[in-house]
């Protein structure tokens, strides 16, 4: 099916999220929509899916102008969408989820799930999905849930599939499998609109790449285009993607974690006797798929997560059992994984957020009284130093973009003398330009001799920053490997394969080819 967007604009008040966008998706084509956060990709797809009415412009399906007043119309026209956050009901079975909203019924209005089951089996067999129609969705891994979403669209006879950031929640292995599925769908005549900001995947699977910046199309290029060129198109200026950091010169191991265990409220062992060292002047990156104990690890060190055993020592002093304030005062800089929940008070001004954990220390406070002049001065300095884009430090933090919010958190945590720096997901939801900036800051902190711990679920980031990589899987450290470990090996380790076995598998594969 051929899909065409002509001059689509979508305005919210005076703000144009999309402006005059032209896009042609040919029959059986994988067309990638590449752009940064807030570039307008999702808005565009919501227009296409009938969730928004375009302010201007036309949508054409097989050269016929169509008018979608809701997702129902879009579905009827053969457009299916897989949202980034799945629209599945966890306590329903796969078949029930697929049937939902388009249930076939038997006489007397009784639900006919058998037809749906049969369709699921057919599609599952055709693409090798391996999905059991009677499995409960909540029991399925994320990758399989995503396939259920795809099945949902296919059962409704979608001939154009919109995948909104589909790889964000997947392991590297699952990502590869998804890319394979996309190729198969294409071979069977389904067109795909693939929304992503990950250049590697985009180049691997697309036939055409349309780059969007600030709501407008910057250009359409072939996947053979240079990665740096694509990144520059996305950001609107030249960016260097590789850090080219100097090799680490590690000193003594001043940060030591031994047998750290956490048992959660449900009685599950979410962190299982984790041990590692971090040396001065070294970045240890903790890799792993989200939800494998990363949050508990960092929060246990900070002191907001009760532990069931182990020890955490910084320069010979035990951190466990101290209050958060004491841990921070001991020289720990902490960037939490979710800045809007743990890192910032979004209603507070930028100024106040820049001293959120320093408010009761000199020079910002003397006794009970705060020195607002110092707070102001500090804000001016940090905003300058970290290039926070704002016209007024008194604006609430919520007025900043994700990248600038993260700069505020980082500026605050890196703005003092540190003995340990911990950053979780330091660049999650941050635009490409700011990623580079923040990465350089982290490396700069390392180079002053601070032990640095980075927790990230983005393998690219781990590889970029790490001097050593620790892989967490189901609360245990599967292995600690050097930074030059091949991607595949890391991917296997993230899925629970031990370091040695992963290396062996990788070697075999290499020989097999």
């Amino acid at each position, binding site marked *: 099916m051929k899909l065409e967007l002509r001059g689509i604009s979508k305005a*919210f008040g005076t703000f144009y999220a999309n402006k005059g966008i032209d896009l042609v998706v040919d029959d059986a084509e994988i067309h990638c929509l590449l752009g940064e956060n807030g570039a*307008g990709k999702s808005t565009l797809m919501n227009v296409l899916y009938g969730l928004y009415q375009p302010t201007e412009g036309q949508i054409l399906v097989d050269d016929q102008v169509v008018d979608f007043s809701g997702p129902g119309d879009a579905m009827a026209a053969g457009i299916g969408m897989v949202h980034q956050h799945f629209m599945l009901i966890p306590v329903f079975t796969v078949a029930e989820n697929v049937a939902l909203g388009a249930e076939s019924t038997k006489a007397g209005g009784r639900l006919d799930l058998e037809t749906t089951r049969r369709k699921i089996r057919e599609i599952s067999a055709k693409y090798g999905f391996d999905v059991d129609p009677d499995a409960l969705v909540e029991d399925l891994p994320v990758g399989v849930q995503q396939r259920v979403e795809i099945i949902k669209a296919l059962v409704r006879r979608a001939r154009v599939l919109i995948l909104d*950031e589909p790889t964000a929640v997947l392991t590297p292995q699952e990502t590869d499998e998804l890319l394979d599925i996309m190729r198969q769908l294409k071979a069977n005549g389904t067109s795909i609109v693939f929304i992503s900001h990950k250049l590697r995947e985009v180049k691997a699977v697309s036939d055409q790449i349309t780059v969007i910046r600030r709501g407008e199309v910057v250009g359409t290029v072939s996947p053979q285009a240079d990665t740096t060129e694509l990144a520059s198109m996305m950001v609107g200026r030249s960016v260097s993607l590789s850090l080219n950091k100097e090799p680490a010169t590690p000193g003594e191991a001043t940060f030591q974690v031994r047998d750290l265990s956490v048992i959660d409220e449900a009685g599950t062992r979410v962190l299982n006797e984790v041990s590692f060292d971090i040396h001065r002047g070294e970045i240890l990156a903790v890799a792993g798929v989200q939800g494998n104990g990363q949050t508990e690890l960092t929060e246990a060190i900070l002191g907001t997560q009760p532990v069931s055993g182990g020890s955490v020592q910084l320069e010979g002093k035990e951190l466990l059992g101290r209050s958060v304030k004491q841990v921070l005062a001991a020289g720990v800089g902490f960037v939490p994984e979710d800045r809007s929940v743990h890192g910032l008070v979004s209603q507070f001004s930028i100024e106040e957020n820049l001293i959120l*954990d320093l408010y009761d220390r000199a020079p910002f406070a003397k006794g009970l009284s705060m020195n607002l002049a110092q707070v102001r001065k500090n804000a001016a300095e940090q905003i300058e130093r970290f290039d926070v884009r704002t016209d007024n430090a008194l604006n609430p933090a919520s007025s900043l973009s994700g990248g600038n919010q993260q700069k505020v958190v980082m500026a605050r945590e890196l703005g003092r003398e540190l003995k340990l720096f911990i950053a979780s997901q330091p660049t999650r939801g941050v635009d490409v330009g700011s990623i580079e900036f923040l990465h350089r800051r982290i490396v700069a902190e390392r180079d002053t001799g601070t032990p640095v711990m980075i927790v990230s679920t983005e393998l690219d980031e781990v590889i970029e920053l790490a001097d050593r990589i620790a892989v967490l899987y189901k609360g245990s450290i599967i292995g600690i490997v050097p930074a030059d470990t091949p991607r595949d090996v890391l991917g296997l380790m993230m899925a629970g394969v031990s370091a040695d076995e992963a290396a062996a598998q990788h070697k075999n594969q290499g020989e097999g080819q």
Partner: protein
Amino acid sequence: MSAEKTAPAPAKNDLFKQITQGPGLVSVLGVIVALIVGGLLIAVTDERVATTAGYLFARPSDFFSALWEAGTSSYVALFEGSIYNSAQGFAPFLETLTVSTPLICAGLGVGLAFRAGLFNIGAQGQIIIGAAMAGYVGFAWHLPVVLHLLLVIVFGLIGGALWGGLVGLLKARTGAHEVILTIMFNYVALYLLDFLMNTQAFRRPGETNPISPILDTTAVFPALPGSRLHVGFLLAVLLTFGMGWLLKRSTLGFELRAVGHNPLAAQTAGVNVQRAMIVAMALAGALAGAAGVAQVAGTEKVLTAGIAGSLGFDAITVALLGRSTPWGTFFAGLLFGAFRAGAVNMQISTGTPIDIVLVVQSLIVLFIAAPPLIKAMFGLNPKKKKIQAAAAATQGGAQ
């Protein structure tokens, strides 16, 4: 993008903030609309309006002039009873300030708790305990001038702080909800005072009614000659300044506000959230306790079972109307004081029942508690656009 969620704060929390700390314009408009609706209510219950309505179509001008007069004359009487009239000059205004004093203090207490994210329904109980302790010191102890009054104030503050702090402690330690705790603490305080008023220690000798001895002259606030206005009003002004300093310029206020907006971020930044809750409730209680002092050592000069009246509940309204800011609460307290002071005159001179003032007060709360209503009425509603934009942002994680 990746797995980035735009992480909206929990909706419940948003609503709480919208109601307790929204823009002041909504308050002002809420008062105006409530006055208009109240005026209409006065008018339609007026006898002359009812009569003229009978021949509305024959002489509509009669009906409308009756309607207008009924509405406006009540408010004119309200004004004359609370601010100024030609016979008494500004004496009614002094009465307004007197009546406002406990409302302002207790309103500050409720507002301070709001700012720390706590719904303090317990001002009533805190006022009662504060008044009981202050009153006891005032009539049972006999101390030199100045020192006596000082101790009366201190014990009143401590009483309120204990009653509020206990709630904070229970919430911090057990996770019990402060709304339920404060409501129950109100009952405990109320019946505790009832009980105390019937003991030898508190009841006036030779008296069978639950009324205490009169407070020593050394224990009461000096009053302005010729009026009931007492020095307690200055205490209210002082406390308003104090709360302003606390919230804006102190580390403690920074902690309380951080906890109020985002306890998780506050905790991550090293704030002891539990301690902050206890401190917030204790301070809120102390402010309500000051209202108790103003009542017992200012206006009443004796302790009775009904010393707190409905002050603790009006204080919630005052804090809401004042958007939980110190000076907003101060002026909201003045407005409510004026309502109370003027209502009497309104009933005497126009026959409009005092209850109508309560109706207006309730309408104000109603309009403030439903900000979208006021915004919709005055076309201030950028909300629809916001929802769309927010939807745009959330739909794709963050596009």
